[in-house]
């Protein structure tokens, strides 16, 4: 067997286990199995850290939602849920292509993996583009908080401050989410190059897999943001 699987590397008792100096085995690991487990666990811990990061702002959002329910409802009416919904579909599709890319990398399907990573990047950028369009509309309406906030709720002028606060949370939460997507896009570009070069195969696919973990996490954050900011009135 020319290419031992991860299973073989984790169980050095089997005779195929000895592949000295795999080009991507870092010197301080015993074998690729240990390296794979370490990097996967690292990404899980990183995701745990991210949950607390977003958790802080979700908590603050909840406090103000309870404090200003009417203003929060008025704020949500300024969101176009149809665009948000379409964008959600785009993002879920990108999660599918990402999962397929991981599957492809594990099976050493070089062209397929690269194509899926490119598609993921394309869908992610589509999401960002739509988001930018939505931002432009909001800014046009004078809904960007701070000195640019010129919007006045004519029916309920007393809600204006609360709507500003809602929009502030909207921009911070979606902005941080978009920032995570842009970082993800940067990583994707790097992995597209590596994938095309043929770095990944049955015994070494950890980068694609942990990229997938990250990408799915960022998608899940959006799955929470979408109803909180667009749907609940």
């Amino acid at each position: 067997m020319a290419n031992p699987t991860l299973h073989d590397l984790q169980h050095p008792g089997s005779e195929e286990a000895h592949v000295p100096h795999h080009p991507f085995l870092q010197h301080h690991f015993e074998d690729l199995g240990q390296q794979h487990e370490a990097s996967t666990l690292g990404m899980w811990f990183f995701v745990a850290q991210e949950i607390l990061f977003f958790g802080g702002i979700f908590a603050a959002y909840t406090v103000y939602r309870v404090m200003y329910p009417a203003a929060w409802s008025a704020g949500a009416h300024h969101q176009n849920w149809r665009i948000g919904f379409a964008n959600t579909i785009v993002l879920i599709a990108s999660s599918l292509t990402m999962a397929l890319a991981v599957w492809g990398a594990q099976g050493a399907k070089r062209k397929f993996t690269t194509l899926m990573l490119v598609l993921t990047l394309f869908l992610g950028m589509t999401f960002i583009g739509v988001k930018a369009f939505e931002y432009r509309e909001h800014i046009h309406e004078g809904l960007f908080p701070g000195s640019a906030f010129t919007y006045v709720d004519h029916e309920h002028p007393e809600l204006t401050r609360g709507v500003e606060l809602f929009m502030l949370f909207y921009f911070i939460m979606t902005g941080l989410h978009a920032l995570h997507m842009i970082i993800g896009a940067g990583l994707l570009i790097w992995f597209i190059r590596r994938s095309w070069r043929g770095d990944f195969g049955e015994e070494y696919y950890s980068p694609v897999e942990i990229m997938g973990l990250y990408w799915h996490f960022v998608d899940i954050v959006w799955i929470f943001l979408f109803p909180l900011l667009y749907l609940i009135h």
Partner: protein
Amino acid sequence: MTTTTIDDAPFIEPSATAPRNYLNDEYGVLSWLLTRDHKRIAVLYAISVTVFFMVGGIIAFMMRLELLTPEGDLFTSDTYNKLFTLHGIVMIFFFLIPAIPAVLGNFILPIMLGAKDLAFPKINLLSWYIYMIGGSFGIYVIITGGVDTGWTFYTPFSTQYSNTHVFAVTLGAFITGFSSILTGLNFLVTIHRMRAPGLTWFRLPLFVWSMYATSVVIMLATPVLAITLVLLMVERTLHVGIFDPALGGDPVLYQHMFWFYSHPAVYIMILPGMAVISECVAAFTRKKIFGYKFVAFSSLAIAFLGFLVWAHHLFVAGISIYSAMVFSFLSMIVAVPSAIKVFNWTATMYRASVSWQTPMLYVLGFIGLFTIGGVTGLFLAALGIDVHVHDSYFVVAHFHYIMVGGTIMAYLAGIHYWWPKITGRMYPEWWARLSALLVFVGFNLTFFPQFLVGYVGMPRRYHAYAPEFQVLNVLSTAGATILAAGYLLPMIYLFWSLKFGRKAGTNPWGAVGLEWATSSPPPKENFHETPVVTWEAYDYPAFLKAMRETQHG
């Protein structure tokens, strides 16, 4: 157990040739600045945190000079506000939090696990650079005029009224947070995945357990501070009302979010101290730590409970009396695992033949001072007393007993204990004992009077005070002078020992642990071949036997 004493430790290195080690493996500035070796990164951290410690210490000394007299005659009140703010920010974010994990943890943890390096060496180096970028913001703010909000950045003062460098310094703290998150992540993965063959969880040195608990707290608390500081920076930039009551915001929410990080941060500072103490107690009593599993799990219990007590900082901020009662109760519960540790260390020393080398002197100091700090913490957890002494010098004395009497004592214990391993040289014992004595006396003289003066009503954060408080303040400043001498002395003799210290050999203390099974200083990859662990933690006879077999085999 054999009757071997420290003085005829069994493994003095016989060969006179200088083997390659991590220090002489490569030369040149770039070999340090681009290194991925955890040991070299630890040395980079050691130098950086020492610089920040000196900056924070000089600021503290300036404050003590001002407080020598009741009148505000040395600095204006504005300058004094900046001094205590910068002292807090520099000491907490740039010294106490990274000190033990990033210096001693970085150096020792992978060796204790029998690993060649941390799981992610590049990320480890990245952490140091992030720390330095964050620290540069701190230095920039000090040079360009300071910041006066207090290290807690309470809103709406920090967002609406203060016209000092709030944005730059909070950005610095935000950036530095990622450095500790990445270090914590690196430690967790390393402990999970990089242990040597035979090194099961319950064979781990207690240092590792405590570092594990620290890393969990770092990973789960620091991101909340990050998002809180983001909100603060946004509010300050856009002038919107996230925390400003005039614009519909809630300033108490800021305090909740801030302390959700910053109370666990106390455990980020003290748990690594406890890690060092466990190692030193085992080494200098030459015994297995009494109740190993209790000490191990008490670290995790402290980490867990530490997340549930933050609102005891808000007892006078207008939170409901019911939630205050719950938080008061929970705060007292944290004393239980802390007390378990103190009792177990003491029980380990009971009827042991303790050798009073310098690290052990610091350990004794730690146990006493940490106990005083912890017990006064119980006073403050009690609602009635907290309302009485809130924002007084009693609180200042309490947390300095934990952070200076606890963490810095432990850091110095650890630096002395592992100095022979890090540098290959012994420090001069007589001078080191003298400095330990100076630190202990100076510390108590500085901070014990503050309990008294706080209890009778001197508020913190003022540059002038009522004349009847002067005697105790003069004592405190006198103590600070002795303390400063106690801190300067190690900087001199440790530096001296780099060249003139006695060669240490592999295991100068005759202690148990993988770090004492490799040469001093260790080779670049820590061990020439991956060690196999066959002994329980702190099992002296089994460890000594295994070492003899390795040497002869």
